[in-house]
C-alpha cells in the first residue's frame, strides 16, 4: 500500500517531530545513566598501585517486603571507611606483592590560603610522585610539597591540619600531580589522628603474577575489605563520584521514563487524530475487503515508517544532547568534576528501540478502536464524530482518579520522603486520568466556558460552543496535552522552590546564633569553637559537622534505605539552634544517641533505638533522645558532635554557631582561613546549595514541557487544518471571515481554557499536598512570573497553532470553495 500523503503529511510531520524529541531525550538520559554506570573518579594518586584495599564503600541491607523476598538495597558512603593498618601484614605475604603502603590523607591549609592534601612520604610511591628538587622529609617538621604551591626548598611554611597552624620546613618539591604535602610517615599518621588506621592499603605488585590472580589472592587475604583495581581505584581516592552515582542513575532513569510517558500521550493524540481524520478511508478499505488487522497493520506500518528515521536521528542527536547536559551539570556543580562522560552506541540503540516501541504501541492503542470502524460507515454521507466514551476508558479513568485521590490522602497523612513519593504518584495518576477522561472534561469545560462565550458574543460564541461540543473527542485529545503541560511544568517548577523556601524559612526561624564561624579552606579546626567559647560575652559556641547517615526509612508502608543529611552538633546546641523539638530534649544528645526529624522518625519515639549506619559505614544502634519538626532546615538527623566527627573523613568542622555579639577576631587570630561572619552569610550559602538542586529541575522542565508544547502545537494545527471543509462551509452559508475567526478564537479560549484549568487544578492539588507534607501548611511557593510564563507559553502557542492555519484556510480575498 502506498505511504502517507496529502492531508496526513501534517500528522506524520508532527509524529516525526515528537518521536525525534522523545528519542533525543531518552538517549540523552541513557547517556547520563551509562556515564553514571561507568563513572569512577579519575585515578590520580594511585596510578602506580595495582590494587587499593579499602573498607566497604557502600552500605547494603536486605529489607523485608510484604509477600515477597527481601529486597537488597545499597547506598554509597560519603565518608571514608578506614582500614586497620594491621591488615597490611597479611597482604604483604601474598605472592606477587612488592610492597603495601598504608595511605593516609588529610586536608592541609597553608598560611597562604592554599588547600592541599597531606600524606606520608611513602605514599608518594603510589602515583609515583617524583622529587624535582631537594630531598625527602626526614624530621618531624619537614615537608615536601607540590611545585604549584609556590614555595622554595628551605622555606618555612605554616600549615594547619586539625589544630592551629604549625611551621614546617620545605625540604623538596614534587613537580606534577594534584597539590599534595608529604610529611614523614610518623608525622602524617599523627596528623591523621586515627592511630592504627589508614584510608587505604595500596598494593604495589612485583609483576610476577597477573593482575586478576593477584586480586583473587588479595581478596582471600583481606576478607570483608573492598579491593579496587583498574579504574575503580579512583573511587578509593575520591568518594564524590561514587556518592552521586545512584542519584544520577535514578534521575536519568526517571527523566527517561517521563519522556517516554510524554511521547505516549503526545504521539497517541496525534495518531488518534489522524486516524479519525482518515476514518472514511479506513472504512472504505474495510468495505473493499481489508480485515480490521490489515487496517491496524497499515497504521502501524505507516507509524513505523515515520518513526524509524525519527528514532534513529533522535538517537544520534541524543549523544550531543547527553554530552551537553553532562557538561552543564558539571559546570553547575551538580556533578563532581571527576564524573566522566561515557559515549557509546548503547544509549542510541536504547533510545531507538524505546521510541519505536512507544510509537508502535501508541499507534496500536490509537487504532484499536478506530479500525473497528464498521465498513458500512463508508457508505454513509459524512463521518460523524462519536460522542460516547468507551466503557473501558471511563472505568480506567475513574480508577486512576481514585488512585490519585488515594495518593493525595497518603501524602497528607504522612510527611517527608513518604509524602514526596506519594506525590510523584499523584501527578501521574491525575494526568493519566485526564488523558482517559479528556472528552468528558471537554464537555464539562464547554458547558462552563461555552456558556460564558455565548454570553459575551451571542453569534460567534454560540457557534464556538456548538463546534467544541460536537467535537468532544477531538477536543479531548487537545485538552490532554494542554493539561499535561500546565500540570507538569507547574508541579516541577514550584515543588523545589517550596522545599527551598521551607528550608530557608526553617533555618532562619531556628538559628539563634548571632555569629557564625566559616572556613575559607577545607574546614574549621576543633580548637576554634573552644577558643570562641572562652571569649567574654559569648554564651555558646557550637561546632557543626555535616555528614550523612544511612537509615532504613519507611515510605508508603515500605522501608527503603536512604542517605540522610546529618549534623553533628556540640553539647550547647540548644542555645544556638531551635529545631522545634516535639518530644525529648536536645540536651540529652550525648553518647550513642540521636535526634530525628519527624519526617524520618516514622514509628520511632524518644527512648526507642534507631539502627543506622554512620558516615563511614559503621553500624550503630542509637538511642532516640528527641524528635523535632524542622528537618529541612537542620537535616533529618542530629548526632552528638564527637560521634559524627569520629565517623567522618576529616576532623574539621563545617561551621561554628556562636551566641553572643562579642568580637571574635582576637580569639581566632591563630587560625588560618577561619572568619566570623554574621548569620546572613549562612543563609546565603544555604540558598546557593538549594539553587544547585534546582538546576536539574529547570533542565527537566524545559526539556519535557518543551516536548509537550511541540506535541500540543502539532496536534492543534492538525485539528484545525482538518476542519477546512467545516470552516469553508460556514463561509459559504454566509458567515463572514471575521465571524469565523472570532468563533475560532472563542473556541480556542474554551478548549485551551479547559485544558489550562484542568492542568492548573492538578498542579494546585499536587502542590498543596506537597507543601502540606513539607511544611505542614498547604501553601506552595508559587512565582507569579513563572506561572505567567508557563500560561503564556502554553496558551500562546496553542492559540497560534489554532489561528494561523485557520487564517490560511480563510484567505481574505479568496472566495470559499469546498474541494
Amino acid at each position, binding site marked *: 500500500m502506498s*505511504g502517507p*500523503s496529502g492531508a496526513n503529511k501534517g500528522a506524520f510531520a508532527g509524529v516525526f517531530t515528537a518521536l525525534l524529541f522523545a528519542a533525543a531525550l531518552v538517549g540523552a538520559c541513557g547517556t547520563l545513566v551509562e556515564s553514571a554506570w561507568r563513572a569512577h573518579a579519575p585515578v590520580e594518586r594511585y596510578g602506580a598501585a595495582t590494587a587499593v584495599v579499602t573498607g566497604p564503600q557502600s552500605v547494603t541491607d536486605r529489607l523485608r517486603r510484604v509477600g515477597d523476598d527481601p529486597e537488597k538495597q545499597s547506598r554509597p558512603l560519603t565518608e571514608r571507611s578506614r582500614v586497620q593498618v594491621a591488615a597490611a601484614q597479611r597482604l604483604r605475604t601474598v605472592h606477587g606483592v612488592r610492597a603495601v603502603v598504608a595511605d593516609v590523607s588529610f586536608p592541609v591549609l597553608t598560611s597562604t590560603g592554599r588547600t592541599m592534601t597531606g600524606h606520608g612520604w611513602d605514599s608518594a610511591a603510589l602515583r609515583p610522585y617524583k622529587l624535582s628538587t631537594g630531598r625527602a622529609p626526614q624530621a618531624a617538621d619537614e615537608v615536601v610539597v607540590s611545585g604549584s604551591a609556590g614555595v622554595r626548598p628551605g622555606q618555612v611554611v605554616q600549615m594547619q591540619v586539625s589544630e592551629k597552624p604549625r611551621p614546617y620546613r620545605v625540604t623538596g618539591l614534587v613537580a606534577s600531580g594534584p597539590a599534595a604535602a608529604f610529611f614523614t610517615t610518623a608525622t602524617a599518621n599523627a596528623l591523621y589522628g586515627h592511630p592504627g588506621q589508614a584510608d587505604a592499603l595500596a598494593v604495589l605488585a612485583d609483576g610476577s603474577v597477573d593482575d586478576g590472580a593477584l586480586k583473587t589472592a588479595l581478596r582471600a587475604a583481606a576478607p570483608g575489605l573492598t579491593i579496587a583495581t583498574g579504574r575503580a581505584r579512583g573511587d578509593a581516592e575520591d568518594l564524590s563520584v561514587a556518592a552521586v552515582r545512584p542519584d544520577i542513575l535514578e534521575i536519568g532513569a526517571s527523566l527517561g521514563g517521563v519522556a517516554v510517558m510524554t511521547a505516549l500521550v503526545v504521539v497517541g493524540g496525534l495518531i488518534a487524530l489522524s486516524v479519525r481524520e482518515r476514518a472514511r478511508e479506513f472504512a472504505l478499505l*474495510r468495505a*473493499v*475487503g*481489508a*480485515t480490521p*488487522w490489515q487496517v491496524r497493520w497499515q497504521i502501524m506500518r505507516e507509524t513505523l515508517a515515520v518513526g524509524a528515521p525519527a528514532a534513529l536521528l533522535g538517537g544520534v542527536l541524543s549523544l550531543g544532547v547527553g554530552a551537553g547536559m553532562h557538561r552543564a551539570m558539571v559546570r553547575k556543580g551538580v556533578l563532581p568534576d571527576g564524573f566522566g562522560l561515557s559515549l557509546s552506541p548503547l544509549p542510541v540503540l536504547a533510545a531507538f528501540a524505546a521510541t519505536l516501541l512507544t510509537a508502535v504501541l501508541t499507534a496500536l492503542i490509537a487504532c484499536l478502536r478506530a479500525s473497528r470502524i464498521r465498513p*458500512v460507515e463508508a*457508505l454513509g454521507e459524512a463521518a460523524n464524530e462519536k460522542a460516547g466514551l468507551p466503557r473501558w476508558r471511563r472505568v480506567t479513568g475513574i480508577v486512576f482518579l481514585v488512585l490519585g485521590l488515594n495518593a493525595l490522602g497518603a501524602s497528607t497523612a504522612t510527611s517527608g520522603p513518604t509524602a514526596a513519593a506519594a506525590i510523584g504518584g499523584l501527578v501521574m495518576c491525575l494526568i493519566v486520568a485526564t488523558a482517559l477522561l479528556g472528552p468528558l472534561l471537554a464537555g464539562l469545560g464547554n458547558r462552563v466556558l461555552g456558556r460564558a462565550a455565548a454570553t459575551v458574543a451571542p453569534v460567534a460564541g454560540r457557534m464556538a460552543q456548538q463546534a467544541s461540543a460536537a467535537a468532544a473527542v477531538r477536543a479531548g485529545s487537545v485538552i490532554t496535552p494542554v493539561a499535561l503541560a500546565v500540570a507538569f511544568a507547574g508541579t516541577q517548577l514550584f515543588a523545589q522552590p517550596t522545599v527551598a523556601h521551607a528550608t530557608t524559612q526553617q533555618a532562619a526561624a531556628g538559628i539563634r546564633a548571632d555569629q557564625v564561624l566559616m572556613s575559607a579552606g577545607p574546614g574549621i579546626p576543633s580548637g576554634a569553637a573552644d577558643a570562641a567559647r572562652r571569649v567574654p560575652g559569648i554564651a555558646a559556641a557550637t561546632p557543626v559537622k555535616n555528614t550523612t547517615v544511612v537509615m532504613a526509612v519507611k515510605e508508603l508502608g515500605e522501608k527503603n534505605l536512604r542517605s540522610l543529611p546529618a549534623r553533628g552538633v556540640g553539647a550547647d546546641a540548644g542555645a544556638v539552634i531551635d529545631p522545634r523539638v516535639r518530644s525529648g530534649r536536645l540536651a540529652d544528645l550525648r553518647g550513642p544517641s540521636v535526634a530525628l526529624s519527624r519526617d524520618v522518625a516514622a514509628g520511632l519515639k524518644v527512648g526507642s533505638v534507631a539502627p543506622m549506619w554512620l558516615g563511614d559505614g559503621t553500624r550503630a544502634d542509637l538511642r532516640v533522645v528527641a524528635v523535632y519538626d524542622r528537618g529541612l532546615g537542620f537535616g533529618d538527623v542530629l548526632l552528638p558532635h564527637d560521634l559524627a566527627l569520629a565517623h567522618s573523613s576529616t576532623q574539621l568542622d563545617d561551621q561554628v554557631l556562636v551566641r553572643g555579639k562579642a568580637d571574635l577576631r582576637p580569639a581566632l587570630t591563630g587560625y588560618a582561613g577561619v572568619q566570623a561572619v554574621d548569620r546572613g552569610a549562612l543563609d546565603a550559602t544555604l540558598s546557593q546549595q538549594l539553587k544547585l538542586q534546582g538546576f536539574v529541575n529547570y533542565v527537566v522542565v524545559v526539556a519535557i514541557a518543551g516536548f509537550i508544547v511541540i506535541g500540543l502545537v502539532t496536534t492543534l494545527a492538525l485539528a484545525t487544518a482538518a476542519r477546512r471543509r467545516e470552516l469553508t462551509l460556514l463561509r459559504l452559508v454566509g458567515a463572514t471571515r471575521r465571524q469565523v475567526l472570532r468563533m475560532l478564537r472563542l473556541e480556542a479560549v474554551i478548549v485551551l481554557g479547559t485544558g489550562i484549568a484542568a492542568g492548573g487544578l492538578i498542579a494546585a492539588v499536587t502542590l498543596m499536598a506537597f507543601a502540606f507534607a513539607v511544611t505542614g501548611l498547604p501553601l506552595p511557593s508559587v512565582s507569579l512570573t513563572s506561572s505567567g510564563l508557563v500560561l503564556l507559553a502554553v496558551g500562546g502557542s496553542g492559540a497560534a497553532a489554532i489561528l494561523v492555519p485557520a487564517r490560511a484556510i480563510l484567505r481574505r480575498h479568496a472566495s470559499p470553495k469546498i474541494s
Partner: protein
Amino acid sequence: MTTMLAETSAQTVSMEAVTKTYGDVRALDGITWTFPRGGFTAVMGPSGSGKSTFLHCASGLDRPSSGTVRIGGVDIGRLSEAKRTRLRRERIGFVFQSFNLVPSMDVEQNILLPLQLGGMKPDRAWLDEVVRRVGLADRVRHRPAELSGGQQQRVALARALVTRPDVVFADEPTGALDPRTAREVMALLREVVDMTGQTLVLVTHDPAAAAWADSVLFLSRGRIVDELAAPSPAAIANRWESL
C-alpha cells in the same frame, strides 16, 4: 426447479427470513430473496424503507439479527468479522455513491486494492480487459483528484469487477453525478451485465437509474412489497408514487 435454485444460490446471494433490528426498530422484517445469476436487479424504496440495511445484510457488510444470508453458499451469520471480510473480498464487489477511492493511490492501485488486500497476484490480462471496458486505459496513473466524478465511478466499478465477484453491489452510484454522466455510468453497468454475465444489485431511489435493470424490487417498512420485471421509467415512477 430445486436443482436450479440450489445452483443459483451457491453462486450468488440468497436471503432467508432475514430480519434486522436496531433496538426497537425493525429495519428488515422477514426478507426472503435470491438474486438470479447474471441478473441486474434494482432495489428501490423511500428513505427509511430499509434499503441501506438490505444492502448491508445482503452484501455481508453487516450480520442479520435473525434468518440466514448465504454468499456463495456460505452462511455469513456464523462467520467472524475477519472471515466475513475475506468472503466479501472474494465474492462481492462494491460501488458507492461517493468517496469510493483512496486519494493517495493512483487508478491502477485503487483497482488492484482488493487483490492486494487478499494477497493475490493480479491477472494482467483481466486487469487490462477491465480497465479497457470501463474506458480508463489512458488514465491508470492518475490520482482520484485528477478525475471527474464519472471517471471516479468507473474506477470504482473496475475495482469491483477485478476480483470477478459473484455479485456487485452498487449503492446510489449515480447519486452524485449529473444526469448525463449518470446515464453513461448506467449504460456501462448494463453493458457489463450483458457482456460478462455479471450479477449486479443496484440500490437507488432514482427511477431513471432503476429502469436500466432487469427487474425492480420495491421495499417498504423492511419488507419486499413488489417486483416489476423489465420496467419502464414511467411504470417505476408510478409504483413509486403508491409506496
